[in-house]
């Protein structure tokens, strides 16, 4: 069996989730990734990172098949249709989405994964295999058959209850349940996997109620997306991105994780494998901008609350990333017992970037706060103190070299984008002061702001290249420079930004895609084009006035989404294959912001203020 057979392409996965964790389902009907109880917990199913021993939950036809997929309506309920020589089978996968009011009315498991099987035409033999492997497959759970109560997999304080109306054969030693069932047209089956953590297991409701739950979940998601105010170009792709982004939010705290996976390779077989199940501050401003731009003011407010809460323990300094509850101790380690996706080793958990210095994060947080206030949000006194403290830190440290937005694991340097974001931090704080939200030492902040700009314009711009450059006095460019226009540091139509756009395009472009940088970063070369960078270029082009060109670019970029509209972190320009962690919030945020900018340039963008946000918690469905 070739690696391609054992490891489906990254783009063959779709995501389902409940805004606390998420599962990846392949087009072979296999749940190959699921961490419980939250995004950054150890995996229960990890075949994504080790097809042999990682653990999976698969339901698919026994013979050859062709699969097609879609999300039901505008929801995150996934439907996979298998066409075989003998019949057609439909598999519906979801984690229930209900309002808090509905959840209080019925005793539900902490987490529930539901799989509904329907034979639509002819007859199909269906194979089932459920093999949870907790703790990143380092452990084999204890499996007990409790008859009508289902199969109970237990491991420490964790309990998984597998129930359904398919008789399962149990291999106790391997903690694996399997079945082959013959279904004729009109016949249906169901399986559910309920998770409990430290409490008595709450069993899933029976199949009929699960089917009702599927309808209610579709309804919940369609109601949520109906709050989206965007109706500009590429609305369908934007709304799918919003749904994907929503799945990557952690509802109890408001955090947004970069991706639900770890160690999907930026180069197959390579070492560029990172853990993205955390929240990067570098994404903060763009995330808030995307959420507010689409009208999701509650989500934007929750995210900002998380942001300010999370950073309290490290204030007035900021770390690069935090976990969903604001923990900053995310030490990196490898899992040598796992083969890695298609042999891409090492598999890493935690992230070394947590110990890096990235000065751009201060600008991200200040810009996010200003955007929130601009949309009608209010900052309390403590938050104001936090923000002013960040400004003080910027004044004290902007002259220091840092690791830059790309987290290059090398000697710190003076990155132009980091300096620009320091300027953004002080500029936004001065704007907040002018509007009466915070009190800052105006003269000092203004003086530092001007000094930063002077340094950027003299050392961060190359007269020879006619472009801003990645590092002071250097002659390389990187894609973050396109953000100078998007953060309103420079006018996109100015000669300097036009020169930068041209230079970045010619140095880093490959068709409509862009590499983030070409500089030596201490790792073997060969990563793909970076998804969000192409969207930044599109946005920059639109801001410069070439809106039709930007629309054409965006149309081409959307062709790189997978069959259900999802993007990975990177794209292989040669093959169009998805690379890196998947799906990637940052890429979808880039897509949303590019579309918002195009709509704004065309004058078709609607905005909603925080105070006008419609209540989204419904009592009845």
């Amino acid at each position, binding site marked *: 069996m070739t690696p391609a057979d054992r490891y489906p392409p990254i783009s063959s996965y779709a995501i389902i989730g409940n805004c606390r964790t998420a599962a990846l389902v392949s087009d072979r009907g296999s749940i190959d990734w699921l961490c419980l109880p939250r995004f950054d917990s150890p995996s229960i199913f990890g075949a994504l990172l080790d097809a042999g021993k990682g653990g999976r939950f698969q339901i698919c036809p026994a013979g050859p098949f062709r699969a097609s997929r879609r999300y039901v309506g505008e929801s995150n309920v996934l439907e996979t249709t298998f066409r075989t020589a003998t019949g057609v089978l439909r598999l519906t996968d979801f984690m229930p989405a209900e309002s808090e009011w509905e959840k209080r009315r019925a005793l539900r498991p902490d987490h529930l994964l539901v799989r509904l099987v329907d034979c639509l035409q002819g007859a199909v033999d269906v194979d089932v295999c459920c093999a949870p492997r907790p703790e990143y497959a380092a452990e084999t759970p204890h499996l007990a058959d409790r008859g009508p109560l289902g199969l109970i997999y237990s491991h420490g304080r964790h309990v998984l209850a597998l129930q359904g109306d398919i008789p399962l054969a149990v291999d106790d030693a391997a903690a694996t349940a399997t079945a082959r069932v013959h279904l004729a047209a009109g016949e249906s089956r169901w399986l559910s996997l309920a998770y409990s953590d430290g409490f008595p297991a709450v069993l899933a409701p029976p199949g009929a109620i699960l089917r009702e739950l599927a309808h209610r979940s579709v309804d919940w998601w369609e109601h949520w997306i109906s709050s989206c105010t965007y109706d500009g170009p590429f609305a369908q792709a934007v709304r799918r991105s919003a749904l994907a982004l929503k799945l990557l939010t952690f509802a*109890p705290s408001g955090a947004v994780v970069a991706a639900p996976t770890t160690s999907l390779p930026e180069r197959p077989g390579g070492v560029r494998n990172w853990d993205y199940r955390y929240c990067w501050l570098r994404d903060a401003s763009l995330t808030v901008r995307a959420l507010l731009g689409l009208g999701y003011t509650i989500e934007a407010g*929750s995210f900002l609350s998380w942001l300010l809460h999370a950073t309290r323990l490290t204030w007035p300094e900021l770390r690069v990333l935090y976990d969903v509850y604001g923990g900053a101790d995310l030490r990196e380690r490898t899992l040598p017992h796992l083969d890695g996706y298609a042999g891409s080793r090492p598999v890493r958990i935690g992230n070394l970037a947590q110990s890096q210095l990235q000065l751009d994060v201060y600008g991200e947080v200040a810009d996010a706060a200003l955007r929130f206030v601009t949309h009608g949000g209010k900052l309390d006194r403590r938050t104001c103190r936090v923000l002013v403290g960040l400004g003080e830190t910027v004044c004290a440290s902007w002259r220091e070299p840092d690791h830059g937005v790309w987290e290059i694991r090398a000697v710190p340097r003076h990155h132009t984008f980091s300096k620009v974001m320091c300027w953004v931090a002080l500029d936004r704080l001065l704007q907040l002061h002018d509007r009466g939200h915070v009190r800052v030492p105006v003269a000092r902040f203004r003086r530092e702001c001007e000094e930063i700009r002077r340094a950027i314009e003299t050392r961060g711009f190359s007269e020879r290249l006619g472009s801003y450059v990645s590092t002071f006095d250097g002659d390389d460019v990187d894609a973050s420079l396109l953000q100078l226009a998007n953060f309103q540091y420079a006018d996109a139509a100015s000669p300097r930004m036009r020169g930068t756009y041209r230079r970045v395009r010619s140095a880093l472009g490959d068709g409509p895609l862009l590499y983030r940088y070409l500089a030596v970063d201490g790792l073997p070369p060969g990563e793909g084009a970076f998804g969000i960078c192409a969207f930044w270029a599109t946005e920059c082009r639109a801001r410069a006035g070439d809106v039709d060109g930007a629309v054409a670019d965006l149309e081409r970029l959307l062709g790189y989404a997978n069959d259900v509209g999802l993007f990975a972190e990177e794209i292989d320009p040669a093959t169009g294959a998805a690379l890196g962690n998947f799906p990637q919030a940052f890429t979808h945020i880039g897509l949303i912001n590019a579309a918002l900018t195009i709509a704004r340039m065309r004058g078709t963008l609607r905005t909603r203020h925080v105070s006008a946000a419609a209540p989204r918690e419904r009592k009845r469905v």
Partner: protein
Amino acid sequence: MNLPAALLWGFAATTVLTTLMAGSQVMGLSRMSIPFLLGTMVTPDRDRAMLAGIGIHFVNGWIFALLYVLAFEALHRATWWLGALAGLLHGLFVLVVVLPLLPAVHPRMASERQGPTPTRLLQPPGFLAIHYGRRTPIIALIAHVAYGILLGALYVV
């Protein structure tokens, strides 16, 4: 029972507990603020919540002081180490039982099971209040032990 003494030393012990917890916040050791958690039960305004929370916190401090004093009276002795032991049990009870239950009774606190409905509510504390910083359990225990030591040492049976 000497009620004035119980109220006086209860006030002093609560002041020390509150100062220790607030100090740990300022030093970036923990995000837990008992007055803030209590105050947001009655108002969503963060600034007013702190004020209301401090009032509720001191009333709670007095109630617990009376319980400590009742225990001292029952044992016919009040010593610093007896107070420390009571404070340790008190702190453990708060961390293990009370705080994880808080999302069920706090009108503005998200539950660990929240979602996908978004929230702009308080984050849940989690087991041992670890979501408010991994040093939170230690600090909360130290503060409660200090509360008990003061009461045990200053109250005379």
